[in-house]
């Protein structure tokens, strides 16, 4: 196991067309880690983005050093979270894995403190508790979010207040075990991981996060997303 005091955090960043956001995310992460004195590495898993994300990743690798930034590329027809994480994990040398979207990186440091405080296996960000919240959401979007979350709580009783998990910290062995067990795709995969984690008896801590909408690019929440969410939810309901 890791030597005393030598925790290392590996951040997995699956990207697709994140040329604008990527440097900002990396800069914020690097600064937060340096300020808190933690050893880290950022693994960028790009899914063959046509906008030059890979090139930006390589530049960042030169700037920060290849012990801090690892840039890999996969080509898949659809960026399934599972594939990206499996690929990323192979390169990860830390004993803690952070999984996050490349469009948000807020208050990263709170996660480490939370983990130490409770020695949790998983720390998950929540928008719904404490002073967590959102920015720039209209009423309709908030309503859909709360409604969907309520339905999830009733059906799955997951033991965590926010399941769509744009930001999570896992112990490496815990993530490994969960990824072996989970079969869903996309963000339903994130939901499934929390549900399975609770079933397996892992401890889950929660930290309020501020979800500031995509810096560049658009967030989509149309009828299609709602339908696919419901399908995913019902699948989890019937299989976990």
């Amino acid at each position, binding site marked *: 196991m890791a030597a005393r005091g030598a925790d290392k955090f590996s951040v997995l960043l699956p990207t697709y067309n994140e040329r604008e956001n990527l*440097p*900002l995310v990396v*800069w*914020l992460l690097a600064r937060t880690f340096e300020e808190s004195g933690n050893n880290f590495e950022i693994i960028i898993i790009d899914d063959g983005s046509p906008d030059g994300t890979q090139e*930006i990743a390589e*530049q*960042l690798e*030169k*700037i920060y050093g290849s012990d801090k930034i690892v840039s890999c590329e996969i080509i898949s027809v659809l960026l399934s979270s599972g594939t990206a994480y499996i690929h990323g994990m192979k390169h990860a040398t830390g004993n803690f894995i952070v999984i996050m979207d490349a469009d948000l990186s*807020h*208050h990263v440091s709170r996660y480490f403190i*939370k983990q130490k*405080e*409770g020695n*949790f296996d998983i720390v998950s960000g929540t928008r*719904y*508790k*404490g*002073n*967590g*919240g*959102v*920015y*720039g*959401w209209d*009423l309709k979007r*908030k*309503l859909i*979010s*709360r*409604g969907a*979350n*309520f339905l999830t709580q*009733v*059906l*799955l*009783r997951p*033991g*965590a*207040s926010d399941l769509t998990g744009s930001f999570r910290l896992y112990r490496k062995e815990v993530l490994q075990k969960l990824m072996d067990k989970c079969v869903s795709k996309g963000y339903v995969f994130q939901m499934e991981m929390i549900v399975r984690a*609770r*079933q*397996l*008896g*892992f*401890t*889950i*801590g*929660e*930290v*309020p996060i*501020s*979800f*500031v909408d995509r*810096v560049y690019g658009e967030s989509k929440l149309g009828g299609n997303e709602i339908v696919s969410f419901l399908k995913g939810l019902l699948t*989890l*309901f*019937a*299989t*976990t």
Partner: protein
Amino acid sequence: QSGPGAVRFGSVRSGSLRFSRRFTPQADMTKLGQWLCGLALLGSAWAALALAPPGLQLPAPFRQALLPLPIYLLVAFGCYSLATVGYRLATFNDCQEAAAELQEHISAARTDLRRRGLRF
């Protein structure tokens, strides 16, 4: 202490909550399975008491009261759902400072990265 399948809540500290699950016999049954079992149990109890099959007779007033019970419970749950979602919607935080802070960070990031040689 907590019985089998119970969720143990840790102390609430600085706005954080902790969940852990130690004993989970229900882990083997899917949520759908649990719901079906629960509904079957409640359903048969209700049918036994309210529908009055021969051999198990309750006084008429009791049966009258029990008969619409499922509908009442459904309506009550509906009201609870509306109230809960409404409350949560109303208390959904808006993070103004976080957004402003993020904008500052973005400018700082761009300046610093440019200085370090990143070509955007």
